[in-house]
């Protein structure tokens, strides 16, 4: 691990199912950055992040997490990151606290530190009334919050989230966005896919637009505008213009 390596560096990443889902993708995310990956349905966003998280084996390419080759040393890479999918997968028969205890144990976190941290996390997500209830009766939003708390309890340096705001009400979404912003302020790195372009526009330091498995544009909102010669336009209009061009090509 090099001290100034990027949080995530992806080179020539390729994955084919029936057709190429990710096609020689290059991507670099800096330390302490909030990076939003946007793109139309089936563009390859989730497949890319699943490969980064170690859930899918790429057909070709390289993935480095803080300078660690994630394909050669997946355990060391996983120790530093957390993955939250759009479909929260938690255990129905565990309470939120029990779930977080399990996650902290899996990451080998000292229970003296993880216990109070878990408690604080659940409180900050508005789950104080549900700490001792089994998750089986939880709504999707509550489950998503428990999953997110699980991702944060081991204090990862890189957090990867696939559509984390899907199914959340406005208050819950604000809780989640607040927590993520706080993590970035504390030096953590967040990579997130989203269909809600407003969120990407407002929260992300940089935005990557992916289409047909390739990165078609990347930069801050200002940089994206400059790249497209549109100085006063929203991300939504930029996105449609970029994706339309790619689609026509």
């Amino acid at each position, binding site marked *: 691990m090099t001290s100034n390596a990027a949080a995530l560096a992806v080179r020539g990443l390729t994955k084919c199912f029936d057709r190429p889902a990710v096609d020689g993708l290059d991507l670099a995310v800096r330390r302490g950055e909030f990076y939003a990956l946007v793109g139309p349905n089936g563009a390859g966003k989730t497949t890319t992040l699943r490969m980064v998280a170690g*859930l899918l084996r790429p057909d070709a390419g390289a993935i480095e997490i803080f300078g660690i080759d994630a394909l050669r040393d997946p355990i060391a890479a996983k120790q530093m990151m957390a*993955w939250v*999918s759009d479909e929260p997968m938690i*255990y*129905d028969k565990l309470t939120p*606290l029990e779930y977080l205890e*399990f996650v902290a144990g*899996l990451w*080998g976190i000292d229970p003296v530190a993880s216990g109070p941290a878990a408690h604080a996390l659940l409180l900050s997500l508005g789950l104080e009334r549900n700490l*001792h209830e089994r998750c089986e009766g939880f709504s999707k939003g509550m489950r998503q919050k428990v999953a997110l708390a699980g991702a944060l309890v081991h204090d990862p340096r890189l957090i990867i989230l696939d559509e984390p705001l899907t199914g959340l009400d406005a208050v819950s979404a604000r809780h989640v966005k607040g927590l993520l912003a706080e993590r970035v302020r504390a030096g953590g790195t967040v990579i997130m896919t989203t269909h809600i372009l407003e969120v990407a526009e407002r929260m992300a330091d940089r935005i990557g637009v992916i289409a047909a498995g390739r990165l078609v544009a990347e930069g801050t909102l200002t940089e994206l505008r400059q790249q497209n010669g549109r100085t006063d336009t929203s991300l939504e209009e930029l996105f449609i213009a970029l994706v339309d061009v790619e689609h026509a090509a």
Partner: protein
Amino acid sequence: MTRAATLTWFARHELRLAWREWLAMMTGGRRRRTRTAVIGLLLFGAVMHLPAWAVVGRYADLTLPLDKTSLIVVSAAILLSWALMLSQAIESVTRVFYARADLDLIMSSPVRLAEIFSVRIAAIALSVTSMAILLAMPFIDVLMIAGGVRWLAAFVVVAAVGLSAAAIAIAITIVLFRLIGPARTRLVAQILAAVIGAGFVIMLQIAAIVSYGTLSRFAILTSEAAATIAPDPTSLVWWPARAALGDAEALLWLLSASLLLLGLVMAVFSPRFADTAIQAAAQGVSSRAGTKVKAFRGGSRQQALRRKEFVLLRRDPWLISQTLMQLLYLVPPALLLWRSYSDSSAAIVLITPVIVMAAGQLAGGLAWLTISGEDAPELVATAPLPAARVVGAKIEVVLMTISIIFAPLIAALAWLAPWQALVTACGVLIAAVASTAIQLWFRVQGRRSQFRRRQTSSRLATFAEAFSSIGWAATAALLLTIPEAALICGIMTAGLLAATWKLSPQRE
């Protein structure tokens, strides 16, 4: 649409849903397998005529009037099938309450709920009865082939038994809801469903052991004592048996009584069906695990995994019901063991295959729950520990649970027959490891709630698991009686496992 037309349409809808659920269970949810499943079922049905012949062939010549012993045997068979149908019906009713996602749609529609839910109750009764007729078909076919068409009446008896079992099951479940609430009803209903089916056979075995020192259920049924205390042959108690043998009057009364019972249940419970179903759908919110904040526990990553698996197993209603059932099955051999302690009977050898078989079957279910039934596979896959250590921790949980359940029985056996205890312990270990290995080879990721359908994801794995448990149980029994034969049986079972591994998808 008229009211009658609406009800007819809803009845068709319910039957279609029941058919599709059944088909999905048979095909593992893969529609392309439908033809294979149908052919497989037809073949299975044809093959089932052979064991059916062995079991009921000798009773085909029975004619009315019957002596008391024959009446007891036929009535016991009908009572057993009723218990099995009741168990199946409780399971069906619970599934309809907790799993159907159409309540909002039905209740927001402009139909009379009591009528609609009457149809739903009737559909449950019909599906239970259809299944019972299907299962009874090989046996009744054999009776008809050997004893004439008068045995057709047995089909009507099965239908009547199915209708009454469904009616009682619905009443039991709704009363349970009222008494103990939806959260506990689910658990209690699953336990009842598991235990009722086995309970009747086990009670007969216990009676046989206590009276005659044998595991044979027929010993008690055909005994002088049973004939002495049984009611007179003209009693109403024997009407189901007489109906099965073609007594038209008894048949008519039996069918009418069953239909009346179902009608009564529909009239009394259909208006409450909606409330009950809504409560069931809202269930879970109040399931609290205690409010004391406990400090997080330390330990290795595997320990964290083992702890999680143990908590989930402890809270799994299926596992509780299955373990109770397995333990219930162990009551007769345990009783035999206790009797043998006082009179040193040779029947004690029978305990070993029962224990080994139970361990193999339970280990298969446990292995599915821990290895395949992982509800958060992505969390575990993104955790910083190798996949082999994850699987290792889960296998440890299976073997530890089996040890906890079976160790007391083996310890008691060791007190009486140390060599047999050693053989039984080895048998339990080998059967449990074999079942776990089969589950590993045929691992298909699923949710724990899909446990009911685990056997449909791979028929090969299901049969291999069953034959492996039977094989190791037979090997252990033979080792105690004919050691040379045990060697052959052991080699055959190991060969079966090797063939299963060769055909397994994990090998590819």
